[in-house]
């Protein structure tokens, strides 16, 4: 990996809230065209790491480097627009800088939300809203997409579609992707590098390797065989169903209510 290709890089990043250390010496690099997924239990500091990368959270120690001129397309965990604000999707997309109607239509088509252009934002389902927010990020023509639990408010059927869409987008636009994810199965499939976070980086690497790492299994209580067949088909199945490291089965369910966790 050539160093010029790096989009963002944290070195020894430490974040403390009061006396509590949320992140301890985290080194993270995301390069152009690469998909990096952060996983970890609630309160592991995943969102905090994203916020530090975005410049929303001041580090207590270490550095965050962003490539000069880097354009980030950020997709927040959940967009809650008050019901009293009359706002169509088209208008929402035009709030962040000048865009043409044609560009809006084309981008909405790309994320499969073309019919929603003139709908009120509040009338969208969770999945529709996330696709619109993805379009919003794309309209900024980003070098790096930063997604905070993109599928959190999306039903199970929509989750696969959303992750497939993210994958298609990064292939088409060649942008890097840094995302936090809770649902291991879908997220892992399109990921180049999986980073398991629990205050510090527990383990990192290709998903099929990380998945077998004892730290990862201890955190998630998951063994490769428990994953969908289409996913684990990539790796050997010889690691057995009963994994001794599963003594702390943290629930990896989609219920992280702590955006700063």
């Amino acid at each position, binding site marked *: 990996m050539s160093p010029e290709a790096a989009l963002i890089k944290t070195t020894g990043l430490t974040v403390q809230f009061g006396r509590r250390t949320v992140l301890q010496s985290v080194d993270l690099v995301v390069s152009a065209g690469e998909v990096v997924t952060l996983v970890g239990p609630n309160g592991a500091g995943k969102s905090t790491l994203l916020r530090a990368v975005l410049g929303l959270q001041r580090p207590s120690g270490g550095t965050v480097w962003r490539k000069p001129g880097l354009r980030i397309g950020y997709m927040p965990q959940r967009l809650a627009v008050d019901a009293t604000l*009359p706002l169509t999707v088209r208008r929402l997309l035009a709030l*962040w800088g000048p865009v043409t109607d044609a560009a809006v239509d084309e981008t909405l088509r790309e994320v499969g939300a073309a019919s929603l252009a003139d709908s009120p934002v509040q009338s969208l389902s969770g999945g529709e809203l996330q696709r619109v927010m993805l379009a919003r990020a794309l309209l900024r023509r980003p070098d790096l997409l930063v997604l905070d639990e993109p599928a959190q408010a999306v039903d199970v059927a929509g989750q696969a579609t959303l992750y497939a869409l993210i994958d298609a987008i990064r292939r088409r636009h060649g942008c890097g992707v840094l995302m936090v994810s809770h649902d291991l199965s879908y997220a892992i499939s399109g990921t180049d590098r999986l980073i398991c976070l629990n205050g510090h980086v527990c383990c990192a690497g290709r998903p099929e390797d990380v998945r077998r790492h004892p730290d990862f299994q201890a955190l998630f209580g998951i063994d490769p065989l428990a994953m969908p067949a289409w996913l684990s088909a990539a790796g050997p199945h010889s690691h057995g169903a009963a994994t001794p490291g599963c003594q702390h089965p943290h629930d990896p369910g989609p219920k992280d209510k702590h955006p700063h966790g």
Partner: protein
Amino acid sequence: MDDFLLRALAGGIGVALVAGPLGCFVVWRRMAYFGDTLSHAALLGIALGFVAGINLMLAVALVGLALAGVLVLMQRQRKLATDTLLGLLSHTTLSLGLIAVALLQTVRVDLMSYLFGDILAVSGGDLAWIWGGGAVVLVLLAWLWRPLLAMTVNEDLARVEGVPVLATQLGFMMLMAATIALAMKVVGVLLITALLIIPAACARRFARTPEIMAGLAAAIGALSVCGGLGASFRADLPAGPAVVVAAAALFLLSQLFPRGGTR
């Protein structure tokens, strides 16, 4: 029509035209209690204005700004929820204001006229302040419109996109403080929030864009002023409360219409 009634109309409409658009942001950002707090602090501003011998509207705006600053600092501590902080500040400043007014030996302050407004006593000088100040507030609001709207949709996103969030927020608070100072004479410190939020709430039903909602809120506010003053003149009602009741009546009436706007 009598001169004082014309001045009252002009003053009331001037305030409504500013309060409508600004009130939309108060509704969208759920800041009604913040508006209450700022207006309750206005009485303290009046007392301090008397003591310092400066223009009372200016004094009220300054106290409102100081209060907004204190609130932002206290929010950063994250020890208490914002509504608790607002309740604390709101009633403390109102009480301080009442005490300060009572302690003023040299001038007799007509407390009722500040609490409930004295629109029929609007002078030519007041009108100049209301229309001049109101125009400045509206121009600044138009200037802040897009970043403010972006922030209202999502603050983190706005920050990532390079919106100067803190400056915009302070700017908005400044406009709130100024508007409250301008509206004080018309409806009084206890009723200002009504003039901010009721026309906006009423306009929501008919609006398809934020801008239309702001324009409608201004028009509905002006209509409330006309209706309230009319009722006040005919039936000898207190003018400030009559304006607020007129706005509430329009709100009730608007609920009879089928939803014309979005959703």
